[in-house]
């Protein structure tokens, strides 16, 4: 955690910046630790200890702007660093839109850093032995294989003779602490802890074909951390892909599992960023207050969800966050406009990005994957994306997928080597339903999603 001495070092950088001729400055001091235990096939494979700190400075000098960072925090080194930074800024072109946020917008409520209730003090007491135990307890390799390496058929989805080839698990616990100060008197702090486990398994069927898949969990609190189901879930997912191949090309209903559905939301949020809007590098230019999507699509930013990782009281400029609609009933309600872009676009500033976006359940709350499969009847359930991209100027996308064909609401067979292709503006007009079966350990709260008339090729 950031010490009082380190806080004073950060504060002194504001004085040095002033001495170097800066009219304004913002200091961001981050500090983190992470302990990581990796396992391979149920044995400890790697032990890693990470400890980082970094000081970033945004400098406003003579109507110009630059950003700099260093991890050398000795007083003499910092003074030299900031003076050199100021000299560099003076060589850049003036930019009248660069300024610190209006003081009235700054966060004043993040004093201790623990207001969001996602810092678990018990993290400090986790011992190396406890970490090893957590990593080894989560591994399933030695527990579910026969001597010949065979997975019991009930774990392999009824398939016989499936071998578990490898299991790579990774337990980690970490803390992260950030302090933001600026020359207008801003001081805000955010602290969080995280306990994480992720596992990837490779299985081999009777034909010698390999299939791999993964699962993970995370929690800001040790008491809520439970990795016991991860290994089995990864095995289940890998076995579910055995025998996968392409389905005939055509239009299908598409249901996207909650663990990967944010892949379809992220391009929307990126396209609403003012940098993209201002540069014309967005398929949502001119979209504000226009109904562009299905009325079933509502996205709200909820940065104050206490106890959930990702929740935060301020953005990187120190601007106070607030709950706000992003898309309501299919209409775009806001761009994400930082102080700089507000000047450039002539827009009112907001927080600079979505902090804790949530896609609201539609058409009713309480829907999960099973309910969406039933509602759609038949189609393709996407459980993983493999590569692909989105053209941000047009919204055209193409992603590789793996998943399952379903008929009459029930899984029939696995598919792979298929592509889903379309345009985001069109895709979101074809939203059938949105589940609210969120995984709280993900950054964006997006449940299972269902769309109609989606192009698949294989």
């Amino acid at each position, binding site marked *: 955690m950031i010490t009082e001495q380190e806080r004073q070092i950060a504060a002194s950088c504001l004085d040095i910046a002033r001495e170097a001729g800066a009219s304004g400055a913002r200091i961001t001091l981050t500090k983190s630790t992470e302990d990581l235990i990796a396992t391979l096939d149920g044995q400890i494979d790697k032990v890693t200890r990470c400890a980082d700190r970094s000081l970033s400075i945004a400098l406003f000098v003579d109507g110009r702007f630059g950003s700099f960072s260093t991890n050398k925090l000795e007083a003499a080194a910092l003074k030299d660093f900031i003076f050199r930074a100021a000299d560099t800024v003076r*060589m850049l072109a003036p930019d009248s839109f660069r300024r610190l946020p209006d003081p009235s917008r700054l966060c004043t409520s993040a004093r201790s850093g623990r207001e969001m209730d996602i810092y678990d003090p018990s993290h400090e007491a986790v011992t190396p032995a406890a970490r090893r135990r957590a990593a080894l307890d989560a591994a399933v390799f030695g527990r579910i294989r026969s001597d010949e390496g065979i997975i019991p058929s009930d774990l392999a989805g009824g398939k016989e003779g499936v071998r578990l080839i490898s299991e790579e698990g990774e337990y980690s616990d970490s803390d992260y602490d950030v302090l933001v100060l600026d020359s207008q008197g801003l001081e805000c702090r955010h602290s969080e802890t995280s306990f994480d486990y992720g596992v990837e398994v490779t299985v081999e069927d009777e034909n010698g074909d390999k299939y791999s898949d993964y699962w993970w969990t995370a929690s800001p609190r040790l008491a809520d951390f439970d990795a016991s189901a991860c290994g089995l879930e990864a095995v289940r997912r890998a076995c579910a892909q055995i025998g996968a191949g392409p389905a005939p090309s055509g239009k299908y209903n598409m249901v996207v599992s909650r663990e990967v559905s944010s892949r379809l939301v992220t391009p929307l949020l990126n396209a609403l960023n003012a940098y993209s809007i201002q540069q014309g590098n967005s398929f949502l230019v001119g979209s504000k207050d226009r109904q562009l999507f299905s009325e079933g699509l509502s996205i709200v930013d909820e940065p104050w969800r206490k106890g959930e990782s990702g929740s935060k009281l301020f953005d990187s400029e120190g601007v106070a966050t607030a709950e706000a609609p992003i898309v309501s009933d299919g209409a775009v309600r806001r761009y994400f406009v930082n102080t700089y872009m507000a000047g450039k676009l002539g827009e009112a500033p907001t927080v600079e990005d979505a902090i804790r976006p949530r896609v609201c359940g539609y058409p009713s709350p309480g829907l999960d994957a099973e309910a969406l499969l039933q509602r759609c009847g038949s189609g393709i359930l996407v459980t993983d994306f493999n590569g692909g991209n989105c053209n941000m100027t047009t919204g055209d996308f193409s992603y590789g997928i793996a998943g399952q064909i379903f008929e009459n609401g029930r899984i029939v067979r696995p598919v792979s*080597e298929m592509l889903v292709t379309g345009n985001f503006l069109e895709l979101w007009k074809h939203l059938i339903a949105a589940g609210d079966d969120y995984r709280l350990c993900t950054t964006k709260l997006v449940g299972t999603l269902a769309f109609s008339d989606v192009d698949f090729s294989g």
Partner: protein
Amino acid sequence: MDNNRDLFGVSLAQLRSLVSEGLKGGSWCDLYFEQTSYNDLLLRDSVVASGGFHLDYGCGIRVLDGEKTGYAYSESTDYQSLLDAARAAAALAGKGGVFSASPAPERPADLYPVARSWDGVPKKELARWLERLEEKIRELEPRTLKVIALLSWSHSEVMMYNSLDSLTSDSRPLGNVTVTVIFSDGGARTEQRNVSRSYRCGAEMLSDTLLEELAGEAVSALDDSFAARRPKGGKMSVVMGAGASGILLHEAMGHAFEADFNRKGQSIFCDRMGSRICKKGINIIDDGTIPLNRGALRFDDEGVPGQKTYMVEDGVLTSYLHDRISAGWYGVAPTGNGRRESFRYNPIPRMRATYMESGSDGTLDDLIGSVRKGIYVDKFANGEVKIGEGDFTFYVNRGYLIENGRLTMPVKDINIIGNGPQALADIVAVAGDLKIDNSTWTCGKEQSVAVSCGIPSVLIKNLTVGGE
């Protein structure tokens, strides 16, 4: 530079003491010191009004017990901090080991000579080069709406020491120019182009030639891009243009040749060593010795001299890509592929410049002329592979339909998918026009490292093309 001990403030006696401490927990210990300065200038809205620099400094200490790894790092190189890191890495608590002597590694050629130091060039001159680049793009193409150009350059001083009592140093420059251009047809339609170049050299890379090259590439065949549509999807023959199509080798084959995936039994190639995996005459290489190349390394991040490694010779799989761990496990010499993003990461097998040698099946036109119905692709954005299954996907920015041996409708924004071993086996023709692509390729396997790729024009039968 013979070593960087003064820069990092450690004596040889201290290095030996730290390694001795690490060897209490394993049979191998190595130290990786790094100081990297990263600088950038951004042109946006026709002015260079944003820039900065970033400093990173520290040392990573690794202890190995067989294939097991203990790793810790310190952002300070004072002796006590390093000793704490060595003890943390030694917490792996293996059997312990001892120093052993080895011949000093050979001194590889200087692969990245700097004719003009980045630090010696006034920022205004660098900014002016970016402004001239925009002017050239606008001159060539009046439909230019926006130009965003980022010039970045970094310099890493690294020093490596290990329990073979081997001390090596490297001084690694890297310059990058990335340009995004938004074009408008005057109506509602816009097009985006991304072009980039990256070299391990000094500011001499910012030549008029490079400026013309980037501007020309940014605006080339723009009418076709506005006219491009998605083709009807399905399985078809695909002609890959020379150069950037090398992403196919990187994603679909190169990762599966990385020895860690094979050691763990995860790669689809783990039991194929010595087997024929593609047609005779095909050679696939991973090369750290191409001068000025983004993937060039005089020494890898384990202190192993840079090498040129044939993975496939005459169609037969002959070598995986090894770091010291996998080399020890397989009982072969390391291939110089132990790489890491920074001192914060332990090294793992990674590619450098991955390419296929030129073949003898004629020219690009010959390949296109042999296809009745298919697709020609020449611009890619990115790719991804599932190591176990070998399934890969890569995204095509630009290409053309091939109908009866001729290029017809321009296509864009599609994916091509396939299976690595199958795609290799399905290469039916290789032209003699190998081209290394010098764009800013970055591989993201656990950590980000700079790589490059290349390929001659090749014809592959039966790849799946996404479309309407």
